[in-house]
């Protein structure tokens, strides 16, 4: 069995992701209400549907991973890839290098 963190932490994590993506009115969103609803339901059923609870827990963990990874992926995407290909100077700058400059400034040979 995969090591799972506690349902409460996953629940909080999902709600946090919903808040980050939806803004201050996240409590009105479909996802928020559905997630809260599911967590309450599974709490009530308790040990009787143990397998179903595990299934739900695994699914919620996957959903949390989906939301977090998508957000982080977008952050990196916007930071590095969103503007298209970089110029040679920018690309060199990213790895801490500078392009060689002409000794007398650009076009000195003319």
């Amino acid at each position, binding site marked *: 069995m995969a090591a799972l963190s506690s349902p409460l932490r996953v629940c909080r994590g999902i709600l946090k992701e919903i808040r980050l*993506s939806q803004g201050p009115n996240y409590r009105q969103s479909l996802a928020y209400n559905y997630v809260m609803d599911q967590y309450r339901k599974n709490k009530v059923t308790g040990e009787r549907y143990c397998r179903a609870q595990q299934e739900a827990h*695994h*699914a919620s963990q996957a959903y949390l991973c*989906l939301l977090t*990874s998508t957000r982080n992926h977008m952050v990196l995407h916007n930071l590095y890839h969103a503007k298209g290909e970089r110029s040679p100077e920018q690309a060199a700058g990213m790895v801490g290098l500078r392009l060689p400059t002409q000794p007398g400034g650009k076009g000195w040979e003319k």
Partner: protein
Amino acid sequence: MFRNIVRFQSLYGHMICKVCPKKELFYSTAAAERKKFYQDVSISQGEGGLFEINLDRRKLKTPGGKLFTVPNEALAIAVATEWDVQKETLKFYTMHLSTLCNTALDNPTQRNKDQMISAALKYLETDTVCYRVDEPYGLVELQNNEWDPVLHWIENRYNVTIGSSSNILGPEIPEATKDTFRQHLKSYNFWSLTGLEFVITQLKSVVLALGMIDRHLGVEQAVLLSRLEEEYQIRCWGNVEWAHDYDIYELRARTAAGALFVQLSSESSTVKHKLMQD
């Protein structure tokens, strides 16, 4: 009525970044984006108990022109959320669940279940966890320590022989093993098979994909095991954020979407079953 049809030509499986004609110098994902044209996203239950997505008052359609329907509420809400969280532009490459639903609904490659099972099992012959290295010693040890337990687990779970090899031809997979998996995969419905095949192609491994679907591995674990050699190299040579982290988040998002998709689309039958019992 035709004005109410919402269609997206670019919302299939693997998105290809096109060159934007106006800015020919730049290769950008901007071409795969579209302006957001709706405010509210809601779901509704239509004919046959299937769930639909409404963007303002228009019904969402698939790229193939079919009505977008999903079998259960959870999946519908997850898809609706994907549409809801888009800001000014629609970034289709972040909407993995919608993409998977579209693939399952339209079936763009026109394959049947048997063909999909064969395609999925083809990955078993070149499964990531079956290919081992001879050197360097650290990586050999890492592969043995991390991959062997999963391999043993799946061999016991399905009572099959898979084995591993450091030969370039890979291990010889017995026909009986493939038959066992084929029988097992036949119990999946079309939707969950679509999701499973997607996960297998992401992780490049049938063993890891089934380990995750059978809830032996978590998503993060499965992704880590799939990228074991890369992780080893990162440990030796350092991490590059815009390549390694970028890849790992994308792979995690895709894998999680696939896993969730399989679970949610095979769940509808369980839920019905429970209602009948009550």
